[in-house]
Every structure is written in structure tokens, then in C-alpha cells.
């Protein structure tokens, strides 16, 4: 399954002012399901129908320094788009690493460049 998953895609502004707070958008086409099936609709009882699959961790590095960590569960959507903010203090790469519940890793990186 892991071989078929494409690497995540990150989007940020091409030119950023120094000390500007900018948005980072990252989409990762990774399936996510709880694996739960409803046993009884009246009582809303669930059991584990199939194994769950989900993104467990998203790590954000700015200039090789860990600045954010998102720990998600199987209740995150399929192919999620995460948006968060960073402060542009230096021209350096932003690297995002995804790790799923099987321990597989994917990463993407983009450079922060200042507007001249």
C-alpha cells in the first residue's frame, strides 16, 4: 500500500517579507479509516471490522529545527489538507515529514525566500 502513496505537496508564498507570518498548506493523499463497523445502529455500538490506517504524526521542521508536531488519530479525514502558520525569521527550508501508523515516512520540502 505504501508504495502507491504519492509524496505530500506543500504550498507557500514565493516571496515572503522578513518576519512576516505566512501560511503553509500541505496536502497528503493518504487513506485514513477508523476500521470501525457499526454493530447495532439503535445503540450506536461499534467494533473493529477491519484494520485501521491513518497518519499518526506530522512533523514540521524550519531550518532543521522541529517547530510543530501534529499527532493525529484515525478520526482525521482521508487525504487531509493541513494549514498552519510560521514566522519567516530566516531564509531556510521548511520540511514536513509524515509518518503513518505502519511507520512509513514521506517528506516534502520548500525554501523560504525573502522578498527583495
Amino acid at each position, binding site marked *: 500500500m505504501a508504495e502507491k502513496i504519492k509524496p505530500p505537496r506543500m504550498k507557500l508564498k514565493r516571496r515572503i517579507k522578513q518576519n512576516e*507570518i505566512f501560511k503553509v498548506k500541505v496536502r497528503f493523499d493518504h487513506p485514513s479509516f477508523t476500521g470501525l463497523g457499526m454493530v447495532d445502529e439503535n445503540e450506536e455500538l461499534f467494533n473493529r471490522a477491519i484494520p485501521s490506517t491513518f497518519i499518526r504524526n506530522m512533523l514540521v521542521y524550519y531550518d532543521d529545527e522541529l*517547530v*510543530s508536531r*501534529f499527532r493525529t488519530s484515525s478520526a482525521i*479525514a*482521508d487525504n487531509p489538507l493541513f494549514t498552519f502558520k510560521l514566522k519567516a525569521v530566516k531564509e531556510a527550508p521548511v520540511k514536513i515529514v509524515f509518518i503513518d501508523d505502519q511507520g512509513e515516512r514521506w517528506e516534502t520540502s520548500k525554501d523560504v525566500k525573502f522578498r527583495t
Partner: protein
Amino acid sequence: MNIDGFLTRRRFLRYASVGGIAVPMFSTAVIPNVAYGSAFQLAANPESLTDLEKMHVPKVTLPPVVEDGSQAPIVVEVDHPMEPDHYIKSIQIMNFTDPVVIKGKFYFTPANGEVYLGTQIRLAGGESKVWVVCECNQHGKWAASRETKVAAGGC
């Protein structure tokens, strides 16, 4: 039981003096409140927030009606400074009526500049109350909730 033989005047005074010291001593002993550490604060009046509440209570954007419970969009913002000694450490998204209660816990640092998080979560069908808890490194945990109706459950 013959109380006359046991409880003499001397014994009564001795027990009374020991009790008079011991009871106040134990009643003032500090007992740590374990539950306090995990408790969170809510806005007393959501219509008029105090300065501290404005800074800490998370702003949650969630549609009032969600068509597809497997892709419920949520945005969380907190108007809080992100300084090295005073910042928001984390945001947690939960729904206590879903089979998977915790959707995620998102950790931030002062390098983020602002606390902003946009993502999509799974919600079970029916009426839901989504809770967001944010944790300040100085002022503890603060919570806010939004109600939504989910047409088709996504769990």
C-alpha cells in the same frame, strides 16, 4: 462495656489534648488536587469575554451542517502572543459522542508566530459537539465548543 473503669478523668484530658492538636493539624494539610491539572477553563460569558479569555479561548470555525462526515472542515485560531516565555503549547480536537473521541493533538512553538490550524476531521452522523482545548504554557487549558449536524456519518 464498662465505660466508668476505662474513661477516667485523666484519660479524658489526655485524649482531648491529643485530639485538639491532631485534628486541626491534619485538616490544614495540603492535599494535592490531582484533577485540577487536567481541568480546563471555559469562557464565563461567551458574549463578553475578559482580556484573559479573549487571549486564550480558541476560535473554532465549523459549518453548522456537515454533509459528509468523513470530511468535516475545521479551523482553529487563537489570538495569543507566541513569545518564548508565553505561548500556546498545543491544541486538541475532540468529540465525545464519536467512537474515536480524539481527532488529534497539535503542538506549537513560538516559531509558529500565530496559532492557526486548518484540517478536516471525521464525525459520526447526527448532532455533534466538537470541543477544542488549547493549552497555554502559563495559564493552563482553555476550551471552546461548536455544535454541528452531520448528515452522513464518516466514522
